[in-house]
């Protein structure tokens, strides 16, 4: 008797990514660079977040041709993004055999009220969160992995830091709570009582939580690990830098050895300009991707 698509298999896949770097790629050539640099997985998409931001328009699932070429180019897992609530994009990606789907606020949402019922799928999902309520709701729907939302495509780490500190701070508070305080916390946080009980019992989230949204340098990646991320996603940070191969390799090493500061100094030397980056105050409310999802 064997069983596919169980929670253990779906969450376990994310456990194997821990301490690793998942890189956004838009073609097979970039995927090969990512794999050679030591990425634990690649995320296939049509445009990296900074280009989505710059060019505007509706951002959708990548052309299946791109995703297929990426899948054929590398032996590491291939993830791909689907729009929030877009059942058909998600089913198409599952049918193509991608290893993980990111139901992502980086793409233009297809549904402004409901997320996907991710429990229904054999393929596992990763979703963004800014706080424990969002984390609980996504896991409740069946997400097997979380990531901070940060503010994608900005090269600015400030929002990812905010979200990771928020989630981990809330976890610590829940762990310290008396059991009789959990129901009121559940009401206030928008998280289910059962979920909070599980967090309290485990002393952590029940799934892996990576950092994402604004990581642009080896030091950024190491900072997120220092703050308790299980690993990092790098979107625009690598292929929008001047030397993608070197950035990719340096970020992989800095993530694995995030407290080896001499090494990080060495890795960061002469890397050339990181992606230019955006100051949060210059981003209008409508362009804040982190506000998408509910």
């Amino acid at each position, binding site marked *: *008797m064997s*069983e596919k698509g169980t929670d253990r298999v779906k969450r376990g*896949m994310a456990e*194997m990514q821990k301490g690793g770097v998942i890189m956004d790629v838009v073609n097979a050539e970039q995927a090969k660079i990512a794999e050679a*640099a030591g990425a634990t*997985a690649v995320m296939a998409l049509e445009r990296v977040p900074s280009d989505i931001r710059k060019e505007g328009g509706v951002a959708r699932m990548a052309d299946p041709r791109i995703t297929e070429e990426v899948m054929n180019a590398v032996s590491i897992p291939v993830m791909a993004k689907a729009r929030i609530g877009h059942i058909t994009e998600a089913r198409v990606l599952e049918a193509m055999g991608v290893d993980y789907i990111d139901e992502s606020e980086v793409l233009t949402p297809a549904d402004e009220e409901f997320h996907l019922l991710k429990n229904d799928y054999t393929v596992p999902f990763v979703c963004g969160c800014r706080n424990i309520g969002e984390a609980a709701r996504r896991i409740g729907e069946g997400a097997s992995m979380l990531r901070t939302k940060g503010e994608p495509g900005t090269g600015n780490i400030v929002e990812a830091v905010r979200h990771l500190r928020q989630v981990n701070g809330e976890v610590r508070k829940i762990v310290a709570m008396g059991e009789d305080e959990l129901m009121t916390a559940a009401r206030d946080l928008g998280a289910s009582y059962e979920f909070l009980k599980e967090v309290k019992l485990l002393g952590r989230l029940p799934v892996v939580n990576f950092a994402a949204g604004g990581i642009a340098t080896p030091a950024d990646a190491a900072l997120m690990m220092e703050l308790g991320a299980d690993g990092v996603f790098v979107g625009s940070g690598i292929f929008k830098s001047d030397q993608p191969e070197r950035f990719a390799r340096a970020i*992989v090493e800095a993530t694995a050895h995030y407290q080896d500061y001499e090494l990080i100094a060495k890795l960061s030397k002469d890397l050339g300009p990181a992606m230019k980056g955006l100051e949060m105050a210059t981003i209008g409310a409508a362009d804040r991707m982190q506000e998408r999802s509910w």
Partner: protein
Amino acid sequence: MMKIGVLALQGAVREHVAAIQAGGAEAVVVKKAAQLEELDGLVLPGGESTAMRRLIDCADLLEPLRAFADAGKPVFGTCAGLVLLAKEIEGQEAAHLGVMDITVARNSFGRQVDSFEADLDIEGIDEPFPAVFIRAPHIVRAGADVEVLCEYQGRIVLAKSGPFLGCSFHPELTGDHRLMQLFLDMIENRELLPTEAHYSKI
């Protein structure tokens, strides 16, 4: 107390640390070659073997890890760890540590949607063992001195050879520590292991 290291460059480190501690041994999170000296055994965890290999090279760990294995110190590899141990990898020119006389095929059960759980009958373990296979490899060739401990659907998924134990699946993802116990027992009874057969081939 026995000291067991877990190679901690990437992957399911925390879970192996918990299993080692549950077995009454001390767990050491290994990131540098110098740490290998104090160890009685080493676990190569599940994760991504290509990423781990690159980090092994960056940290100048390949030769120290080989030396550790060649000295007859026990090493337990799970999933990616099995791939690291293997002498040959199907479709790839070079192996990684290349110390265990097996050939493995990577991702040989399919992609993530084909990942599965199954109960296994393991040689020397009484009750079925709950196994989690994630984009798992399997052993396509086992050398003469390799003892096959479990096959699933005609594929070798657990084997032992001298001081080396390797499996396709992830015992670290369940609360079942019997395989870790088997490894700890191997270390404790180390002088009884047929390591000479291994040495003679080097």
